[in-house]
């Protein structure tokens, strides 16, 4: 093929081939108007390569990002990893992710369903939900002082399970340890694995009435200075009674003890009692008289 040299540049020449192509070739000392046979054609940079992998690389980057998001964020946060069961009387099960996020909340019995009804656990973690549920249980009256909350964690990961149990218990104990019992393990009749019982001091003990049947059952004691067990005694027994606190009934049980040997019938305590119980002035006096009578009867 012959090529007609159309234009010369220092580094290349433009030639026209016989089919009408214009080509850039090596300028082997050509002059315009020359006809040449052998040419060394210019190699043009191939621009297709980057166009091929560029969108693909973007896609790969996107896929990598997605993987990162899935394995780094989504999976630990949104994949069920274990379950935490709270048994008060309401039985509630929380499905937890690895990062303690509550994924699901399920009531396992009717009370449990009632407990979680209307409760929004979205976006909360285990600590918040357990605390709020216990709070709710207290509000709804399922849980009162001295009762037991049992927590059971189950997961394939035993380390995680143990840690969760410990943390859940610690968190609850810190808040409610004074009033309720937190127990790990199922709330069955078997003795619990771990039980923490904090002695409960009831803030508002109700004064209990005198148990009537105890009077019939109890036999009068051999040495009767105290006439509480006497069938004739009409007042308090003194054992379940407290003289202190708001529930005190104002009757001190020291009076009967005082008159053991010298029953003169006048004690310091009784003076105070009389002052207080004006409406019933004869009460103590009667008892004292009874006491004396009893002692005399036994002596007889």
């Amino acid at each position: 093929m012959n090529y007609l040299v159309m234009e010369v540049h220092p580094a290349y020449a433009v030639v026209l081939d016989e089919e009408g192509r214009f080509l850039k070739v090596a300028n082997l000392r050509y002059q315009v108007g020359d006809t040449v046979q052998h040419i060394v054609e210019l190699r043009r940079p191939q621009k297709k390569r980057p166009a091929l992998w560029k969108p693909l690389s973007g896609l790969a980057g996107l896929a990598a990002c997605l993987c990162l998001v899935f394995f780094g964020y989504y999976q630990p946060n949104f994949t069920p990893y274990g379950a935490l069961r709270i048994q008060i009387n309401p039985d509630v099960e929380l499905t937890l992710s690895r990062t303690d996020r509550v994924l699901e909340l399920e009531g396992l019995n009717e009370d449990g369903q009632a407990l979680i009804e209307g409760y929004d656990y979205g976006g909360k973690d285990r600590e918040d939900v357990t605390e709020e549920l216990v709070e709710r249980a207290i509000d709804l009256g399922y849980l009162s002082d001295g009762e037991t909350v049992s927590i059971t964690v189950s997961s394939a990961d035993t380390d995680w399970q143990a840690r969760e149990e410990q943390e859940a218990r610690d968190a609850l104990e810190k808040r409610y340890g004074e009033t309720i019992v937190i127990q790990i393990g199922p709330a069955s009749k078997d003795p619990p694995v771990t039980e923490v019982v904090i002695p409960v001091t009831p803030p508002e003990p109700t004064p209990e009435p005198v148990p009537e049947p105890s009077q019939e059952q109890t036999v009068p004691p051999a040495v009767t200075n105290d006439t509480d067990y006497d069938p004739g005694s009409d007042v308090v027994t003194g054992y379940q009674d407290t003289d202190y606190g708001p529930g005190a009934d104002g009757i001190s049980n020291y009076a009967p003890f005082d008159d053991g040997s010298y029953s003169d019938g006048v004690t310091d305590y009784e003076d105070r009692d009389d002052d207080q119980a004006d409406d019933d002035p004869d009460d103590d006096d009667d008892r004292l008289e009874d006491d004396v009578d009893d002692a005399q009867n036994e002596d007889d």
Partner: protein
Amino acid sequence: MVRTEHDIAAQVQAAKTDSEAADALIRQYMGFIRSETVKFIHTAPENGHEDELSIAMLAFYEAVLAYEKSRGAFLPYAARAIRNRLIDHYRTEKRHGNVISLHTPLGGEEDGGELLDAIPDAVDHVEDYASRTASQREIQEFSEKLARFGLTFSDVADNCPRQERTFAACRRVLDFARSRPELLKRVEDTGKLPMNELASGSGTDRKTMERHRKYLAAILLAFTNGYEIIRGHLCQIAPAKGGSMK
């Protein structure tokens, strides 16, 4: 003046699109190209290695076209390009390896002439010179006409279809235009390609024509009046052998 790599990169970037800037850059780095060539052929290019120097210059120009900032500093890149191109050149030359030089001494005598002297000179130098000046004049004319359209041969060569199918499509356009001398006349007069007529007449995709409009303009102009030599050169464009146009 100290030139930094940054300057070179800017120059190279300019030379990619501007052929004059490319020429200037190559002239400026002629020493570099020459030194790289000498490193490869281990002798001065003047001792019968002028072709290698030309190839090295072409390789430098290719490097200018292909250079990207991500490929590192330009000069090492160009040096590598020159080296690779020269290696390629030697490999292709080896194919016709059993060729003896025209400068081979005759008969081994010291004072004897070279092979070149013994070959009878069949070429008519006077006629050759005449035809070359004629074609030079015509090409010059053609080039001026292209310049009126704002084109240079470099532009046309850059715009020339390289894929066989595209080239065939352009050929169809040309064939169609040659059968309609009035279209060619209009191209010459207005300097615009009548895209619609050409597309509908030749059945070529309009977009393909748009992409290669510079090339199409040049090749259509070549088939307008004058340019006998160029048209004669394009002998392989067979159909409607030019005669209809005169």
